[in-house]
């Protein structure tokens, strides 16, 4: 099942322990507490549940949901 923007936001909120409504689409998620361990958690989760093939470096290079969406093949 392909990822959606909504699902990305929900998963990011989950690893950060925040409300999805508080996670912006265009801001640097590092400022919201995203770290390498949490990015690795997302990489693993999305590989397992959605068959994506992004690497840690791909996500860490531009840590914002809107930047990730094309890498993850997500639609709004």
């Amino acid at each position, binding site marked *: 099942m392909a990822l959606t923007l909504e699902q990305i936001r929900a998963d990011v909120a989950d690893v950060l322990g925040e409300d999805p409504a508080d996670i912006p689409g265009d801001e640097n998620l*590092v400022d919201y507490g995203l770290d390498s361990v949490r990015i690795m958690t997302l990489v693993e989760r999305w590989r397992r549940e959605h068959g994506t093939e992004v690497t840690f470096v791909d996500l860490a290079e531009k840590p914002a949901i809107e930047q990730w969406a094309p890498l993850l093949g997500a639609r709004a």
Partner: protein
Amino acid sequence: MTLTALNRPVGDAPSRHPVPAGLPLTAAQSAMWDAQARGAACPALTTAEYLDIRGDLDPDLFAQALHRTVAEADALRVRLVDTPSGPRQLPVDVGAPGHGFPLHTADLRGERDPQAAALAWMRADLDVPFDPAAGPLFAHGLLRVGDRRWLWYHRVHHAVLDGYGHSLVARRVADVHTALAAGREPAPSPFGRLAALVEEDTAYRASTAYERDRDHWLRHLAGRPAAPTLAARTAPPSPTTLRHSAHLDPAASARLRELAASVRATWPDVLLAAQALYLARATRSEEVVLGLPMMGRMGSVALRVPGMVMNVLPLRFTVPADATFAELTRQADLGVRAARRHRRYPFADLRRDLGVRAGDHGPAGPPVGPHVNVMPFDYGLTFAGAPSEAHNLAAGPVDDLSVNVYDRADGSGLRIDFDANPARYDAAEVAAHQRRFLHLLTRLADGDPHRPLSQLPLATDEERERVLEEFNDTAVALPPTTLVGPVEARAARTPHATALITADGRQLTYGGLNARANRLARHLTGLGLRPGTRAAVALPPSTDLVVALLAVLKTGAAYVPAAPAHPVSGPHDAAPVCVLTDTATRAALPDAAPPAVVLDDPRLTDALARQLPTDPGRALTPQDPAYVLQGVVVPHSAADNRLRWLQDAYPLEPGDRVLTGAGPGLSACEVLWPLREGATLVLAAPGAHQDPAKTARAIREHAVTTAHFAPSALALFLDGPEAAGCTGLRRVLCSGDVLPHEPVHRFHRALPDTALHHHYGPAEAAGVAHHRCAPAAPGTPVPLGRPVWNTRFYVLDAARQPCPPGTTGELYVAGAQLATNCPQPEAERFSDDPFGPPGSRMYRTGDLARWREDGELEHRGRTGDHPLAP
């Protein structure tokens, strides 16, 4: 190969000046450059690791992959030179394998232990410093240790590469090797350029984000505590690093991850919180600041540059005694998140902003304590199908302590390295801290994170057993007794032996002294003295004083010395039945003094002559007060325990002559000890404690073998040139307060053949510790010593849990020599002894101390004071 990026200056250089060659250093590189300039040297400035590769490997292909990867990574191929415009990095040519490429290859399969031989070679290689100005600043080794096993060794100057950079290099070498082995052209280089790194760094320093980040950190560190340290001493950074590696077992590692998930944190947060807890407990601080190394690459071009980027950020914790681990983990999580928002601000700039002074360990000292560096990545690399495991060998310079945690998927659990500055820690200390930290992690993993941590001990079970039992193994069965019984026995056996010599040379035999004391005792009994009552004694050091002391004890009453400077009966004293004094002293006594027994009154002399000179009958009174010193009530059993221990530790013989403490008043124990053992008591002249020459003359003239001094009086005595002439002294006993090292040093110089013993103890627990002072270098602190017979010491942390050896805590004492009572506010210092037999008590000394590994106590200041410099 051309290196255009390196040759191109960044930004618009002023055209009138010649453009300096190469590139400036990034902030992270500068920090390492400065460390080197401050005297740090290789190997501490090296980072190194090796990959254990299991399988078939073509060493020539591997060398090609290595060379190709290095050629792609311009950040690696630099040398560092100082120029008038600051340090610059210049490109350096690196030859092909076999033509100058720094790759050492060896087949160690012929060695008895090939892996050990390989590791030995690596360690030796780590000691060879790089020449920054010459370069290259990296080196490789490929060591064959089995038919299908290879160790790839890689070391780099830390100004060139950090830990994450190592992983980038290793991954690319593996990919290139795998492609070459399959006959494929490797994928294009994933690496970014060094120039991009420098450019990003330069842009950041000129940005408003830089200003914002600085403001954040200065606010965050306002009122910061001194950097916590576990070290017993201060010292500058060393050229080497002391490393102890250990693994947290896989089960405990897994439980820690579950614990982290249960409180919605990550397992690195748990490790940070645990280290904060450990530090806070071990340093008695409610606030600690850890150093948090950050890979510093998120959202940055640096993610693809194998260079030096990492930064260190302060992580401040508040650790109240009753905090829960869930709360501490939450602090770690929030703290790391906040730090991450301001992650780029260079640590070196922060030190500068804070005005940190090198060598200062107070509020102007370093802003952070030990670093906790969590590396959550396993490489999981394969080389043409051969799997590998990465092992770190060196992680860079260490000012104090760095806890490096590696999560590598080899099934061995978390690897937890303690890297220490060897000038501050010895191997045993590092090992002990590491063992304790792992023990703490295991307990946390097994515990409820929502329970207060106040009951969680820092010491391991083995350490607890050692500090509570082994160091306090002092039990000796003693018969119940009174203090004066042994004096009477001596008088009966050797009535003609000399018991007493006064300052003016008059002598009194045991028979004579005992008879005088007996007559006075019988008289005092007639006045109502008996067990449970008190008699004040206001007399100068004299024969009369000794007689009075013995007489009061013979009645069973308690002796209350009352120097004229002190009121005879304070508000806390049970009122004395009478005061024993002389005509001269009586005039200085307050009007409200109890009835006086004036020893030089002729009417008393007549009355005493009518009393019998034989020993009066006495009940055994071990628990009754023997004397009361400024309100502190000391029972017979406590004083007797002390005197028996003294006699066992350094036996007095009848030929010994013992000079009493040259101070105001006389200590009951100092008087009684020689008289119980058949030795001779020598009374110092009044005021002799302020006159070293007088004291020395008394020691020489009366052939004194044993002398008592208060610490201050000893220092004064040693000021005089006469002290060195007192060579007949066999031993000097120094009692009471903490003994500074300076008089001890002078003592051994003046009297090299005389033993110096120190007896520590407050009035409420006099003489509870003993230390024989050995000659030591100036500046060496004098230990408090070990507990005497039937005495136990506890060094407790803020949660009243026993501190392990080496950790400072508050000193408590329990056992036979405790006073039974004392005035407020000191009375509140007594409490139930939770570690002793039921009903026993302990006394809080107010001193800070720590156990040495050998079971001696060291003094570390007073509670409420600033702790001593670490």
